């Protein structure tokens, strides 16, 4: 389904990013694993085999991101897909959210994602091959108490997704997003059992989602099966009520 496609995934060392890399490799793609943790990325690349390439750089450093894309252009020449997956979430009521925390979340979840699309779209030159998938969130779509800064960063990414879908359509690049609900990853590692239980009670299907389930949706959006889908924010939340 993704035979011969070259796909860059940010934050590919764990969680949804890792699952996406695994699925993309299984479907025949070459995957560029981007992130900051060199040791983990190299380990993942080794486990995934020769079609997985680790790329360690600071996703939030404008210059390093440019250098990473210059490297891709020089050594591979093009990109078929980008998954803006790396993300951080600081939970706190607004009164207890420092502007520094807000800024950090915006810098990674929104600004870095924007710069990655800006540069990736210029390497998506093969007709009909450009696909961008952003990791938005049910929190950005519907809002959640105690998560206003995170929600702002993800809602901004929703705006970017919808706008760039319109702008990049002229180049046949499809831009979509997935909006997961409560997925079993380290993003929630600081949640207590009670907090988890309370959240699971809001999920119609009565359980957390798995990274693999999100990865399956992302890989579909990256594939030719999704060639006529653009500008969509697709919920994957097991019927969660926020």
């Amino acid at each position, binding site marked *: 389904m993704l035979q011969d496609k070259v796909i860059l995934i940010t934050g590919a060392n764990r969680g949804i990013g890792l699952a996406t890399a695994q699925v993309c490799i299984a479907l025949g793609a070459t995957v560029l694993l981007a992130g900051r943790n060199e040791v983990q990325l190299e380990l993942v690349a080794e486990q995934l085999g020769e079609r997985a390439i680790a790329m360690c750089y600071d996703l939030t450093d404008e210059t390093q991101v440019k250098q990473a894309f210059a490297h891709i252009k020089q050594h591979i020449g093009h990109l078929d897909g980008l998954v803006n997956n790396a993300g951080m979430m600081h939970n706190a009521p607004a009164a207890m959210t420092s502007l520094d925390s807000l800024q950090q979340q915006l810098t990674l979840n929104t600004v870095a994602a924007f710069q990655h699309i800006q540069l990736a779209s210029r390497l998506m*030159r093969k007709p009909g091959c450009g696909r961008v998938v952003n990791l938005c969130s049910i929190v950005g779509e519907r809002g959640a108490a105690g998560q206003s800064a995170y929600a702002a960063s993800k809602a901004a990414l929703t705006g970017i997704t919808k706008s760039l879908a319109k702008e990049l359509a002229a*180049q046949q690049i499809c831009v979509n997003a997935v909006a997961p609900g409560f997925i079993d990853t380290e993003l929630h590692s600081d949640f207590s059992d009670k907090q988890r239980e309370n959240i699971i009670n809001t999920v119609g299907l009565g359980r957390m989602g798995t990274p693999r389930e999100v990865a399956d949706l992302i890989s579909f959006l990256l594939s030719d099966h999704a060639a006529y889908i653009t500008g969509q924010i697709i919920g994957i939340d097991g019927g969660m009520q926020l």
Partner: protein
Amino acid sequence: MSESQLTQAFVTALGISAEQVTDELTYNEIDAWDSTAHMILIAELEDTFDIMLDTDDIIDMSSVAKAKQILHKYQVNPE
């Protein structure tokens, strides 16, 4: 790097004739050089000269003359 390569990049990207590619030709002055065509032009220049332009340079590339100036920075010298 020849001036004809630069001219050809404008011709291909904007779908205009070589005669229209003068130093004075500016962005948005003709319908063919709108924002969508600008990105196609950038892609064409990058492919032709095997470079990757900075965002600031993409924004600054407001005329053919300016394009030549900017390309000099990338060691590309259309004579």
